[in-house]
Each structure stands twice: as C-alpha cells, then as structure tokens.
C-alpha cells in the first residue's frame, strides 16, 4: 500500500513536470508565476483535504467504515443519474442559447459552467455518501 502511494505521487509529479514542459514549449510567454500559483494551490488544497481525513480518522472512537457496498451503489446511481442530467441539461442550454441567437460562448463562461457542475457533483457525492 505504501509502495502504491509512492508510485502515485511520483507519477503525479512526473506527469505535472511533463505537462509544464510541454506547456512552456507550446506557449512561449507562459505566465510561470500564475502556473506555479495554480500548482501550489492545488497541492495545498489536496494536502488540506488529506490532512482533514487523517485528523477525522484519528479522532474516530469506533471502527465503523465510512463507506461500504451500499454507499458505492448509491454513488454509482448518483453518477449515472447526474450524467443524464448534465448531458440533457447541457443540450437544453445549447438549444436555448441557439434559440436566443447566441453564436459563440466565451471560454470563461464555459469554465464557470464546468466549475459549477464539478462543485455540484462533489456536494452531491458527499450527500449521497452520508445516506
């Protein structure tokens, strides 16, 4: 298990380095500061989440697992349902925008839409996990 964790961390760092190198090759005036802030922010975010999980585990008085077979089934059902909602919802939004005469979408608006979707999926997963 420990070995697997080391492999995962090494793969992540290696992949990020390749991505950074390719990015700097493709975009000559790459904003290094912004990129570094993004990467450090992500690493710190993951660290906070992992730290919180470890802290909660250490304070647990009993040995009851947080997740079992029923939780996985619930999560799978939730993702299956959300897939259809997201697909049909997105299709509906595109149809609506076309009907309203919109021809282009800004990437910023698209990224905010994806961010909201991701946020809702995470919140949904947490809610379903507790049921």
């Amino acid at each position, binding site marked *: 298990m420990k070995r697997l964790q080391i492999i995962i961390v090494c793969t992540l760092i290696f992949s990020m380095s390749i991505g950074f190198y390719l990015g700097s090759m493709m975009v000559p005036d790459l904003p290094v500061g912004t990129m570094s802030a993004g990467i450090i922010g992500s690493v710190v975010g993951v660290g906070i989440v992992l730290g919180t999980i470890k802290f909660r585990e250490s304070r647990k008085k009993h040995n*009851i697992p947080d997740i*079992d*077979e*029923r*939780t996985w089934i619930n999560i799978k059902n939730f993702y299956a349902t959300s897939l259809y909602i997201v697909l049909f919802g997105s299709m509906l939004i595109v149809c609506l925008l076309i009907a309203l005469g919109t021809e282009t979408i800004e990437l910023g608006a698209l990224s905010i839409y994806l961010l909201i979707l991701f946020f809702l999926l995470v919140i949904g997963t947490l809610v379903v996990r*507790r*049921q």
Partner: protein
Amino acid sequence: MDLKVKNRIKEIRLAKGISQIQMAEDLQITRQTINAVENHKYNPSLELALKLIKYFDITLDEIFTLEEE
C-alpha cells in the same frame, strides 16, 4: 407476481443482544446499511448475506425469506 426479500436481522440481532454499532464494527459495514437492511429498503449482496449467516451462526433461510408483496 411481485416478490420481495424479507429478513429477520433486527429480530435476531436484538435476541442476541447485539447493538447496531457492534454489528457494524464486526461486519465492517455502516450503520445506515444495517438500518436499510433491517427496514427492508436494501437487499444485501451475496457476500454480505453470507457474512451475516456466519456472524449470527444460522442458516440462510432462517434470516431471509421471499414473500409476495
């Protein structure tokens, strides 16, 4: 004809004086799952059903029955 799996887990658990927390710890499942199974809202997997009969030391048909709705 609609058939539904019913179980006597709550009855057996209480007869043996086992709490839900104790059972959850021993079987490594959540308390919510025990509640759902006991209230016939969730049918356990074959693996969990086999764990249950081993845990309570009884036969399968003593716990689970197939009933008409």
